[in-house]
Structure formats: structure tokens, C-alpha cells
């Protein structure tokens, strides 16, 4: 009876009634499981793990983590499916010739795979921590902010040849100057964006 009460305190939604469910609850409450999958990691732990994964990517493929170039490919593939001809664009010929290589597709583009993996990995982590919840939109302004912010990020990333990942988290530590220039620029942009956010979007 006492134990039953203790468990009910933790799980008011579905109080365990059988020995089997009680065992499962205890397994989920195990400290190791909680440390890894339920309690948040420190920011520094996260940063170091991200850095090591990035180095592993570079070691295995010769290319570091990047997000936005593949997002551009996605757009170009969609454009192609709408009977456009992105392969004729000077951009891909001059800047990203890989896009025009024969046999190039979503499944052999490292960036596409890591992008999809990031969505799935975050979903997995949220489910494992019992924290997954559909967070609905709260206002029309939020929709406008999402649209405008998305457009600005997409266009800005093309101009800068990358984003906070490709330029900053991969370019800067790989000793490329553009990473440092991007760091200063994105910081200025974020500061300006904060003012806009407070003024117009909250």
C-alpha cells in the first residue's frame, strides 16, 4: 500500500496496478536512464559532444557539419519537380558543382542525411524524456515571424556561404577566416533582431 502510494505520486496519470508496470516505472526512474535521457545535459556537455560529432564527420567524410547548403538543394529539387531547371542556374555550376553531379540525391548528400537525422534525433530525445508535445502557434504574428525569419535565414545563408553551423561551428574551428567574420556578423544581426523581436513580434 505504501509503495503504491509512492508510485502514484510520481505517476498520477496512469498509476501502476500490476507488478509488471511497477517494474517498468522503476526502470524509467533509474538514475542512469534519467541522467542520459530525462534530465537536461549542461550546455558545455552539449557543446563538447556536438564538437566531437563534427570532428567525427570530418574524419569520416572529409567534410564538416553543414545545414543550409542541403536546404538549398531541397529547394532546387522541389523546383525541378515543378518542372523548373535549376541545373542550368549559374549558382550551382559556379558555387556548388556537386549538385549537378550524376547520381547526386538526398540519400548520398551528407547534409540532407544529417538534417533529417537532426529532426528525428530531437524527436527521439523528446519522446525518451517524455517531453514530446505539439506546441501550437499562439498568434498570427508568430506565423508572420516564422515566414519572415525563414526567408531571411535562407537568403542570408546563401550570401554568407553558410549558417551558424557551416560557417561558425565548422568553418571557424577549421581555421577559415570566413567563420570569424560570420561570428561577428551573426552577433550584430542577432542583436538587431532582438530589438525587432521585442518591438514588433511579441
Amino acid at each position: 500500500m505504501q509503495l503504491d502510494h509512492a508510485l502514484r505520486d510520481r505517476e498520477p496519470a496512469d498509476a501502476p496496478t500490476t507488478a509488471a508496470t511497477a517494474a517498468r516505472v522503476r526502470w524509467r526512474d533509474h538514475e542512469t536512464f534519467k541522467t542520459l535521457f530525462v534530465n537536461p545535459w549542461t550546455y558545455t556537455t552539449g557543446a563538447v559532444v556536438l564538437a566531437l560529432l563534427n570532428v567525427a564527420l570530418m574524419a569520416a567524410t572529409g567534410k564538416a557539419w553543414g545545414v543550409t547548403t542541403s536546404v538549398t538543394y531541397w529547394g532546387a529539387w522541389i523546383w525541378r519537380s515543378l518542372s523548373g531547371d535549376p541545373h542550368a542556374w549559374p549558382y550551382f555550376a559556379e558555387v556548388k558543382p556537386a549538385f549537378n553531379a550524376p547520381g547526386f540525391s538526398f540519400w548520398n548528400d551528407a547534409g540532407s542525411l544529417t538534417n533529417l537525422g537532426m529532426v528525428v534525433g530531437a524527436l527521439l530525445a523528446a519522446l525518451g524524456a517524455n517531453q514530446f508535445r505539439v506546441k501550437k502557434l499562439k498568434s498570427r504574428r508568430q506565423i508572420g515571424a516564422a515566414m519572415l525569419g525563414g526567408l531571411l535565414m535562407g537568403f542570408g545563408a546563401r550570401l554568407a556561404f553558410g549558417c551558424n553551423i557551416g560557417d561558425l561551428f565548422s568553418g571557424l574551428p577549421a581555421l577559415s577566416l570566413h567563420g570569424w567574420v560570420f561570428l561577428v556578423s551573426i552577433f550584430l544581426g542577432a542583436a538587431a533582431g532582438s530589438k525587432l523581436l521585442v518591438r514588433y513580434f511579441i
Partner: protein
Amino acid sequence: MAASGEPQRTLRRIPRTPVVKKERKNQLPYALAVVGLVVAIGYYLAAGLGAPKSAFVWIVGVALGLTLQRSRFCFTASMRDPVLTGGTNLTKAVVVGLAVSTVGFSALQLGAYFKAGQLADAMKLSSLDPVGLHTVVGGVLFGIGAVIAGGCASGTLMRMGEGFLQQWIVLPFFVAGSLIGAATWPLWKVALLVRTDSGVYLPKALGGFVPALLVQFGMLLALWVAADWWGKRGRT
């Protein structure tokens, strides 16, 4: 936490522990189903397409998403919070991450360099991209967009997985913005004076790995100290 749709929170420091309002239904079975999906896609890449490297990249991608979610990592917040709330814990963590990857990347580059004594071999592992006025304009636009949209490139993908509907709207517009950028390349290439060969590799520009790494770690240390000072200043 960083979504603009939670205005009452954006002005505060990001809380370290998520506030669980009520106990939800056990989601672990769904988590196991997702693990199954991850393994299935990995198997398809390795065995079906005969591309074990792609399978490895896929698993790293999943690990990246998992890490981002578990540590509540947000590059946008690391840039925004010093301005908005004065908090710099995330900023300092980013600097630590940059230092760790500098060690890893430069080790790989040095390995490539010593094989044949060619700096060009090391440069291949440097994510080298053109640098110039366009980097500044693009970076500023990207920073504004990331703060308004409530997440940068990695944050958008992570929040999509966490269930934020806002980021499901951000992505198609992110794609559209990227496509517009690629389509208008001939225009901004001229307007912003882009030279595709303008990439600067620090060991080449500064005359070797030793000065380059000294400058690199010196700048990172200076950044960390500045962020630490800024964070403490706001607290007292």
C-alpha cells in the same frame, strides 16, 4: 524556450530544468519505434544502397539532434541572450565547443599536412569558403532571421522534432529563401563583390600552423573571458 511565441520567457534567462506541468502518457514505446526507424534507414543506406559511409553520417545526424535537444542547445540564444537578458552561459559553451573542434580539426589537418608536406592537403579539410562583404551582409540577415524565427538552422530542425509547429512553417520559407538566394546569385555576386577564390585559410595567411593556432586559441580565450565578464556583470 527560445520560441518567440513564449514572450513571457524570452526576456528571462533560459531555465535549466524544463518545467513539467503534468505527467504525460508514457512516450517510451514511441521512442522505441523511432529507434526502429533510425535503424531501418541506417540499414537501407548501408545494405540497400551499399553506402556504409552514408549510414554513419545518418547516425551522426541523429546523434546531433539528440544532443541538441538534450542540452537545450541553441546557437541563436547564445548570440541573443547576452543582448536580451545578459546571460552568457550558452555563449561560453559555444566557445568551449569551438575550442574542442579546433583541436580536432587542426589535428586532422596536421595529419593530412604531414603526409606529403602539402598545405593544400590540409586546406581540403578546412571548410574553406569565400569571405567578404557578402559574409557580413549574409551573417547580419541570418542573425535577424534566426532571432525572429525563434531558432537558427540547427534550432529550427531540432524544434521541428520537438513538436513546435512554428518551425514547421519556418522550414518551407527557409527553403524558399535559400532558393531565391541561389537564383539571384548573378545579381549579388556583382553587387557584393563576391570572389569565389577569396577564402582565407589562417595557417596559410599567418605563415604556419603555430601562429594560426596561437591566434585562434587567443581569440577564443578572449571571447570566453569577455563573455564570462559580461555574464557576471549582469548578475551583480
